[in-house]
């Protein structure tokens, strides 16, 4: 059998989701954002919500997310995505509303909005990309930076005496009464990607069924910020990040 015989439209088993635009993504090579964008596009397609989705962009690396997935997007002020999502969902109850935020946006600047939106039980989904660093602005320390981890603003490593302890937003969200589904996933292997897809799909379905607010954290790598190759960054993430940020579903009602 020749290669040309296999490469026929009827034999296609996997391709870039059609909801993703052709424009090349601005993310660094090997960035986890791309995989999560792909998963979200696939899920929206599978749910048939292409025309009924409103997504909220954060400020951070994913600030240009509106270029890549062909649904309606709103651009929020820094950290204010859950507030904007609240307004959208209350106005258009039949829409799938989700925010896509990084750890600087969600856990630092927008910690108040996030906690309160989750606690109110807004029928939204928050996708939380946690790479333990401010990726866009040059790798500064974030609230989620691990103890001992070196960043450009703590070059000798994070110490509890000087910088306090890492903030675990997802554990905190699981204790709130308003949340319906809280999960922490990763996208570093094929198996992890499949699990993450299932979690995001469940969160989207929950928000459409009006069960409560949903938070899916994706523990991600930032190879540029961590000063490692994409493959090495994933290894570092497995060794260090997963010890503090345990993967799995924290709450599912």
């Amino acid at each position: 059998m020749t290669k040309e015989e296999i490469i026929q439209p009827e034999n296609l088993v996997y391709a870039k989701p059609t909801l993703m635009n052709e424009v090349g993504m601005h993310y660094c090579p090997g960035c986890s954002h791309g995989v999560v964008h792909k998963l979200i596009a696939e899920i929206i397609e599978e749910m048939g919500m292409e025309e009924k989705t409103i997504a909220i962009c954060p400020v951070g690396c994913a600030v240009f997310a509106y270029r890549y997935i062909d649904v309606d997007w709103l651009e929020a002020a820094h950290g204010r995505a859950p507030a904007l999502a609240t307004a959208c969902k209350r106005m258009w109850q039949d829409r799938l509303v989700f925010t896509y935020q990084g750890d600087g946006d969600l856990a630092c600047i927008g910690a108040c909005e996030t906690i309160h939106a989750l606690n109110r039980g807004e029928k939204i989904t928050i996708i939380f990309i946690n790479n333990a660093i401010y990726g866009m602005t040059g790798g500064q320390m974030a609230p989620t930076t691990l103890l001992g981890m070196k960043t450009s603003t703590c070059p000798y490593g994070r110490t509890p005496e000087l910088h306090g302890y890492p903030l675990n937003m997802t554990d905190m969200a699981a204790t709130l009464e308003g949340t319906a589904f809280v999960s922490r996933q990763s996208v570093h292997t094929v198996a992890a990607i499949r699990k993450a897809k299932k979690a995001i799909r469940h969160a989207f379905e929950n928000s459409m069924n009006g069960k409560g607010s949903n938070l899916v954290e994706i523990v991600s790598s930032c190879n540029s910020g961590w000063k490692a190759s994409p493959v090495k960054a994933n290894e570092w993430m497995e060794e260090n990040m997963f010890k503090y940020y345990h993967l799995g579903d924290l709450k599912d009602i």
Partner: protein
Amino acid sequence: MSKIRGAIVIDTNRCKGCALCVEACPFDLLEITPKKVNHKGYTYVQQKDWERCTGCTSCAVVCPDGCISVYRKKEEA
């Protein structure tokens, strides 16, 4: 015995050469081009041995930029 054969098509101009697919391939069939770059200046990935590809989609699933399309066909012996 029938055998599952696979083939991939790589959008080399979209590829950034992150090599996550090289790691993900269970049969080690992919490699980064040593001395060629695409129009953005990135070295890109290519398949060094397509005969053994089963179309498992591992490379395409982990690709952050969605550069890889996977085709699969059953070969009757």
